[in-house]
């Protein structure tokens, strides 16, 4: 079980967020506070806008209304230079890694560092090698192209690139989807280890009930265009039928039992 958080300091705060595509409103008056150092899991049925919520926070999706505060800065008020700096505090792992296919894994990481620093290339290579190792990949994987890696390795390489500038907040989009149970639980451990040793705040979209139990401090459930955030123990007591079905269904019960 993940430990109880000591601090309640907030790193990301969403206020009255509204997202809509045409007439279809995905989120309305959505409020969410993400605390420093926590691992928060985002769940919800398909079409409830989990990915859209994540893309809104990292700035890939224009919100229709509301405020986003990242590290106490309102993203609408800061200058574009500050926004770039803010972006560097966030790392994103997309679903299939989204590595640049024309570059090797190592070059994928080096490209990020070279873009934002003036460090000499040998040091950049060493930093890239460090990130590859931190992501649990063997050293040789650095010289491979993304197409030569398995799905699990691609995700690890994606994490390594997300960590390139040592972000404070890491976003993960379905990190364990498509991995076998062994790979998935190893990936959970990797996230937990990185979170602890690097002091990261992790926001992960997931459908993996085992991940929710194993590493998430709190869980946000997207329901009725809003998000309900609580610990997994409290959520299981919720009367809402969707939440009941989610955590109380056969898979939910199995996951609860195995993490008791």
């Amino acid at each position, binding site marked *: 079980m993940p430990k109880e958080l000591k*601090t309640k*300091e907030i*790193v990301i705060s969403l206020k009255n967020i509204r997202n809509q595509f045409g007439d279809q409103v995905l989120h309305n008056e959505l409020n969410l506070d993400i605390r*420093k*150092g926590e691992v928060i899991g985002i769940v919800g049925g398909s079409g409830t806008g989990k990915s859209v919520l994540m893309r809104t926070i990292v700035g890939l999706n224009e919100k229709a209304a509301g405020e986003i505060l990242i*590290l*106490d*800065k309102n993203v609408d008020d800061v200058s574009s230079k*500050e926004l770039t*700096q*803010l972006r*560097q*505090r966030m790392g994103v792992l997309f679903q299939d890694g989204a590595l640049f*296919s*024309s570059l090797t894994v190592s070059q994928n990481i080096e490209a990020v*560092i070279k873009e*934002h*620093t*003036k*460090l*000499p*290339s*040998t*040091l950049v*290579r*060493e*930093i890239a*090698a*460090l*990130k590859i*190792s*931190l992501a649990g990949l063997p*050293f040789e994987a650095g010289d491979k192209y993304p*197409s030569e890696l398995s799905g699990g390795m691609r995700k690890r390489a994606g994490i390594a690139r997300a*960590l390139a*500038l*040592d972000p*404070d907040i890491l976003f993960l989009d379905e990190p364990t989807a498509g991995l076998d149970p062994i790979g998935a639980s190893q990936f959970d451990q990797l996230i937990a280890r990185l979170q*602890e*040793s*690097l*002091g990261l705040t992790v926001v992960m979209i997931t459908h993996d009930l085992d991940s929710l139990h194993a590493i998430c401090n709190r869980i946000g459930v997207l329901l009725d265009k809003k998000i309900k955030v609580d610990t997994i123990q409290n959520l299981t007591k919720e009367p809402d039928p969707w939440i009941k079905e989610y955590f109380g269904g056969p898979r939910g019960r199995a996951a609860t039992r195995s993490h008791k």
Partner: protein
Amino acid sequence: MHRFINNDAVFKSLTSPEIKVSQNKNATLCQLSGSWLTQGLVNVLKPLEAIQPQREETFIFDLSKIQTMDTAGALVLLQKQTAIERAGGKTSLEHAPDHVTQIIITVDEHRIKDCPPAKKVRGFTDLLADTGKSFFELTYKFGELISFLGLVLIASYRQVLNPRRIRLTSLISQMEQIGIHALPIVGLISFLIGVVLAFQGAGQLERFGAQIFTINLVAVGVLREMGILLTAIIVAGRSGSAFTAQIGTMKVNEEIDAMRTIGLDPIDVLVLPRIFGLVIVLPLLTFYADIMGLIGGAAMTMITLDLSLFQYIRHLQDAASLGDFFVGMFKAPIFAFIIALIGCHEGLQVSRSAESVGRQTTRSVVEAIFFVIVLDALFSILFSVLDI
């Protein structure tokens, strides 16, 4: 454990990393301070470089004033420590705050002490090796194309013997895509080529007072060469690439594999309708291009030579023989077959990545145009030898 003291550290109180060196009685004291983060790390590389250990010298790194440190900062410090120890010096890290200690431990666990240097720039021998490799690849590719040709011929033989196996819906739809949708562009380009030939020809032939032969130039040029060649090139760019992209995308989605497991032969279902469709449609398109080219020529000669349409048609009858027309039309189905064959073959060569769809599509267009032009040249020689 949190790295920065407060959220504001991200912007304002991010101090540059520093290192101060002072001599003690029996040791060198290095006082580290500031934020050792990736973005500012470049400022500390020089001072670090300046620390050159003597034998048996002891270095004490005092980390107590470090504000925050990330993995790159820790890496730089640890690499320096290793370098000093290798040179025979002694080191110790002292008074590290908890969050810094944790980062340092993590990095020490994962760093690679001897990062091998990047691959050297390739030399002349590599160039030779690459040339040889691509030559062998080329011959191999050509062999594959020939074996694909065999497959297609066998499959079409089967279909011709048993016409009910022909996929009529697919064939008609392909003919619409390749033919009807290409009419505007083929028409426009042929018309303009007719105009250009007539204009340039009239200008040159005027010097001999042989302006009337402009019509011969337009007729022979369009009917024998330009009509078919331009149509074939447009179709290779439009439809040959589409074949590769369509079949390639299906390959990426495993649709081709799905077909095989259901018992459908992709050659029957995907390749033959495209090849037959193009072989039927390209001669029609060529005929249309010929007409449009002649109309373009007519428009221009009527203006520059001051002829009436009737006179133009009369001269055209003298200038062009039926043979010129058939020479052009004869080439159409052959070019069509080659374009479709290459387009489908390259589509089936796509591996399971989206990137390779783009690569194969480019290759398909280049190869198709190359073969069309080479064959056209060969045909020209053949026809002149046969005196047609």
